């Protein structure tokens, strides 16, 4: 063996790796490092921004990394017995608990009941500021759809509680897709709104038929969460009758424990929701489950209010991003049935960004314009002047 031959062999006696296998090894190392860093980042996110039981106490970054937790996961944490008192949103909007109040009567005030959501609350509040002779009773749920408002009115009507002489129903354009739901849970999965309400459809004879949710109070919700049979019944009902129910978004699983997993679920949930809303909006809500049902609810609301000598008024609230689709489907039926109404788009353009706050609500100025339009409608009655 010559020295020359010895000089090219390596010290360990192994053959040197080819450039190709070296390149593959390098890629393998990079991939391992990538996975390791991702795992550490995932873990660190969970430690630095831990989800709390009460969302109201979470920072915006904590909320950001928690948005994608499953609806069931959020419900179990937020409604869990210990934190139930803190999570005020859990108790909001339940019809059986919030729509049984009678409207107080006052001889020197014009009372009105207003049904709806935060938009209608703000309009009601501004109305009272503009005209001190008015007094209001608000009945609302977070981003509540018209079926919630209608069911709330119906609950009071059927209970024969005292109704104010003016009954105002607020309908929010962006909540129209929620007419196909039974609860706020399925559409607001990022920040859950667990209140429930009936979903309506039309029978062959044109009557409104309600599908009532298996849970109707916050108490029942807490009870259901500890009772697997009731929980399955509730979930099955949503799977059957709630257009926005999605198993992957709803049911708790291992992804709840990973920040990356939660973000993937959030993206999926948003995609599913966007696609379903887009499907409904393709024909400007001219959908057999929406358009005729909405009209039937509005007309029945007016009919029932008149039957107790109350004055029915409908406010079509057209918020940002939904154009004038609500007026298009609602206004003709209201006009044909001589129901007094206003479309907010007549006074506040839904396309102008400066009419809206960052959270989507009307600015104070826009809200003032809407309230003044409602006030001017109210004052068409000589008794109100």
């Amino acid at each position, binding site marked *: 063996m010559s020295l020359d031959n010895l000089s090219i062999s390596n010290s360990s006696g192994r053959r040197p790796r080819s450039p190709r296998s070296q390149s593959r090894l390098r890629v393998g190392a990079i991939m391992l490092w990538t996975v390791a*860093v991702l795992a550490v980042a995932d873990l660190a996110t969970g430690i630095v921004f831990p989800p709390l039981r009460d969302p109201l106490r979470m920072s915006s970054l904590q909320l950001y990394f928690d948005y994608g937790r499953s609806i069931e996961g959020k419900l179990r944490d937020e409604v869990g017995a210990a934190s139930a008192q803190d999570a005020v949103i859990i108790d909001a909007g339940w019809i059986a608990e919030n729509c049984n109040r009678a409207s107080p009567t006052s001889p020197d005030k014009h009372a009105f009941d207003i049904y709806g959501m935060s938009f209608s609350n703000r309009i009601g509040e501004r109305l009272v500021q503009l005209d001190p002779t008015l007094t209001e009773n608000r009945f609302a749920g977070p981003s509540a759809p018209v079926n919630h408002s209608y069911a709330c009115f119906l609950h009071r009507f059927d209970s024969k509680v005292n109704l104010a002489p003016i009954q105002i129903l607020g309908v929010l354009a962006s909540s129209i897709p929620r007419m196909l739901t039974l609860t706020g849970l399925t559409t607001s999965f990022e920040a859950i709104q667990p209140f429930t309400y009936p979903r309506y459809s039309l029978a062959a004879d044109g009557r409104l038929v309600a599908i009532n949710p298996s849970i109707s109070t916050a108490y029942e919700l807490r009870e259901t969460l500890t009772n697997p049979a009731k929980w399955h019944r509730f979930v099955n009902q949503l799977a059957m009758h709630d257009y926005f129910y999605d198993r992957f978004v709803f049911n708790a699983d291992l992804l709840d424990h990973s920040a990356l997993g939660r973000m993937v679920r959030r993206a999926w949930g948003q995609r599913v929701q966007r696609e379903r809303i887009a499907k409904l909006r393709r024909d400007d809500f001219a959908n057999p489950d929406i358009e005729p049902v909405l009209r039937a609810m509005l007309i029945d609301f007016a009919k029932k209010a008149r039957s107790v000598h109350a004055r029915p008024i409908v406010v079509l609230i057209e918020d940002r991003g939904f154009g004038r689709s609500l007026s298009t489907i609602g206004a003709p039926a209201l006009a044909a049935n001589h129901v007094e109404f206003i479309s907010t788009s007549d006074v506040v353009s839904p396309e102008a*960004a400066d009419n809206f706050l*960052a959270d989507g609500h009307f600015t104070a100025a826009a809200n003032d314009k809407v309230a003044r339009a409602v006030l001017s409608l109210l004052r068409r009655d000589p008794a109100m002047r």
Partner: protein
Amino acid sequence: MLFNSPEFFVFLAIVYVTYRVLPFRWQNRMLLVAGYVFYGWWDVRFLFLIAFSTTVDFSIGALLSEKGMAPPLRWTASLFMVAAALLFLCPNWSALAATSFSLGAFLTPPELGIKVLVGTTIFVIVANLLIERLGRLPLERRRKLLLLCSIGVNLGFLGFFKYFNFFVGSGDAALRSLGFDPTGLHLDIILPVGISFYTFQSLSYTIDVYRRRTEPTFRFWDFALFVAYFPPLVAGPIERAWHLLPQLSRPRRIRFAQSMDGIVLILLGLFKKVAIADGVAPAVNSVFNSTGVVSQSDVYLATLLFAIQIFCDFSGYSDIARGVSKLFGVELILNFDLPYFSKNPSEFWRRWHISLSSWLRDYLYIPLGGSRFGGARTFLNLFLTMLLGGLWHGAAWNFVLWGAYQGALLCGHRLLTRSSETLPTSVEAVNATTDRHGGAIRRAKFLPDSISIPLRIAVFFVFCCYGWLLFRADSLEQISTFTNLLLGFGTRGTSVMARPTLAAQLGIVVLAGLQICDYRAGILESFRNWAPPLQGLVYAALIFILIMGTSNVPGQFIYFQF
């Protein structure tokens, strides 16, 4: 089909696996079908335009050669065009999207489909008859005639689908003032996705064959694949026949390193598009789509963010296209080379949308005379090229204005650098006429590079951003209002701007860091030379922010509309 949609990745997986198991010729056939599926996903009917361009340009390419077009080739091309009209236009494809599918409705041909089928058949018969006569003409005369035909057909399609509505709309008032009623001229034509890209790509082939810079191909299906190769089909890079066609015409070997490059480019492209472009889009739109009064800071920020959005959107698409193509062993032209590090407009156009700027240079600026006929003519040629480049982007006055602005910047830069070039102030200044990238500086060196280069980059970026304001504006009125606000005039409103998403905010920081590293290293994706742990950190950051960005509302790629 969008690159950032789950459907695309399912499509890609199917195409890739099929590709790996097929022999070469079947790979090409499969890629051709994949290209048609990819484009037809948006609207099947417009596949006829691609088929038409393919047949016309292939035939003209073959006829431009002395060899001409053999009868079997003529039959293939003729049958392909008629079959395309029959398959893409005669079934009622919109019936597929209906809530309840009906075979009867699907098979009922629309009136337009029948008309186009009959027209295509007549066109094919007449063309075949003319080819015989054409063969009797002297070669050079025949070649000129054929080139004019190719330019006429391609630009005719482009003009009709892209600019008809614009010119009719713009001429509406003028026609009315002359007593004509132009109502009947409004056809409400739908703009086919990416028409400018594949038309320019196909047209470049016939021009290059005419100039004898490219050999014509006599393989019809290879040429059909060149036109309909799906990665760059709808938003570029605009490929050249000399670059892409040879790669498609011979068997390809997929190398491990090339596939890895492809995956990295796809990741980078998705990161730019999903995390950044889609994340800043709501902020930009909240200002530019607002019908109300906006604040001065809104205009500044929205313009800056749009500069980021359009770069990430368009270069993101190009990255994904190049990355996907690498998976099939095909290299595409580099389209973006750190454009926001340009120090002047001339450099910018060597770094931004390179495939378009080089196309405009080769097929417009140089044929117009380039810089061969002296100062005034050169300025005119530069200006005209950029003006038409602006119009290429879209049929709207703001694009024309943007093109004019880019032309004016180029002319202004040329004017300034020429004057300083003739008056060197010192020996050092003469020595400093080449920058670190080999480009001509042509100026006196008053400041050290460490200050002057960032300063020049920053100053040019401001000019560049104003161009993006012109590009993004919805109307000439908005341009005027926003320009007034930028200059401190006009009515200032309250801020209406939405905040970019967290993914976009983090993404911009990471991307800016990576691009600064690339610029300093003088190569793209320089992080790929770093040690594995550092590379792992970069990839993990890209993936983490990309996953954060998946919650952004996905938008269509901006350049699809062009």
